[in-house]
């Protein structure tokens, strides 16, 4: 931290010294960044130094994050926070996160300029309300999905008993196994496993078969 501050002080001193001699700059391609330390971005200064009419040094804290092609970004940040506060904030953040910090400062400044009273807080409140509404909608949809699954579970109990009517009375046990995979009626959601409870009911209680036969007769009456 102290090294960075010393560097920044040196940059400030250089800027102050060379403020008198300001050359007339020409538009052109920017120099490569591999220059020796202490050289100046004399061809194209960054947006900050252009706005503040300063000489842009190679170690300028703003140049990596405020491109000269986007002067409006730094203009909004400068209007809301001030250049010295922004450079101070960028120095506090680790170098790997400074680009993101600069972007977030730009965004906050823009929102603050659009809505001077509430700023980002109004947007955050609106977003939180949307999140709550979406969560409520998600809960409702999930409960509806559960209802459809229950209906599908009830329907699978009736379908194999229907197949028994068609034939194969002698091999009733085998016919109970075969029909469910052969006739997958289109469920509201395809990824639904067959519930084990109906098959276990059929196999574990043979006495209920008589009841099922009774149900078959009643169903015949319904269809007829």
């Amino acid at each position, binding site marked *: 931290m102290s090294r960075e501050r010393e560097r920044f002080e040196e940059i400030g001193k250089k800027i102050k010294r060379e403020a008198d001699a300001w050359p007339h700059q020409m538009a052109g391609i920017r120099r490569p960044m591999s220059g020796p330390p202490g050289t100046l971005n004399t061809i194209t200064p960054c947006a900050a130094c252009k706005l503040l009419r300063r000489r842009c040094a190679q170690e300028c804290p703003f140049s990596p994050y405020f491109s000269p092609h986007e002067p409006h970004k730094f203009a909004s940040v400068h209007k809301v*926070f*001030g250049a010295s*506060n*922004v450079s*101070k*904030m960028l120095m*506090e*953040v*680790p170098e790997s*996160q*400074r*680009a*993101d*910090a*600069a*972007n*977030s*400062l*730009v*965004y*906050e400044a*823009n*929102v603050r300029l*659009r*809505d*001077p*009273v*509430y*700023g*980002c*807080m*109004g*947007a*955050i*409140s*609106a*977003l*939180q309300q*949307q*999140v709550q509404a979406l969560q409520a909608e998600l809960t409702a949809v999930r409960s509806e999905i559960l209802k459809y699954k229950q209906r599908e579970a009830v329907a699978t109990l009736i379908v194999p008993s229907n197949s028994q009517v068609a034939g194969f009375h002698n091999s009733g046990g085998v016919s109970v196994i075969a029909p469910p995979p052969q006739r997958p009626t289109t469920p509201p959601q395809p990824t639904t496993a067959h519930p084990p409870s109906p098959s276990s009911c059929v196999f574990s209680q043979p006495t209920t078969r008589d009841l099922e036969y009774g149900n078959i007769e009643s169903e015949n009456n319904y269809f007829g």
Partner: protein
Amino acid sequence: MTLQGSSGVNNGGYVNQCAACRHQRRRCTPDCFFRPYFPAERHQEFQNFHRLHSNTRLQKKLKELGLSPEEQREAMSSIIYESNIRSQFPGPSVAVTNTFSIFEPKSHSSPLNYVAPVIKSPPLSSIPPPPASLIPPLTTS
């Protein structure tokens, strides 16, 4: 404005100072702008605020906007809220930025030509809800 040092030790003034005047070593007058927002016990919040905002600059801006007292309180409340969030997430304040990259809110359109960076952010539930009444009631005492 006379400095506290030149006027000698003033315990009464020191006790009644708000966090902003204490930071700048000034005598706190009853009509101080920052007294309602930064009383002495909210020293940490003032530190968070002062990292990114300067007192005189902000005061000028709010006066230029010509806000009503209610709007002024709301503006200060939102600025304090943002400052506290930024101190809680000391990086690029990812919570604030990333909320806009999730989806666009209806009531606040995003600025033109802005592309939100893709940042790993803390979960949205970790953002503290906006304070209902962060500001104490305005008193002339």
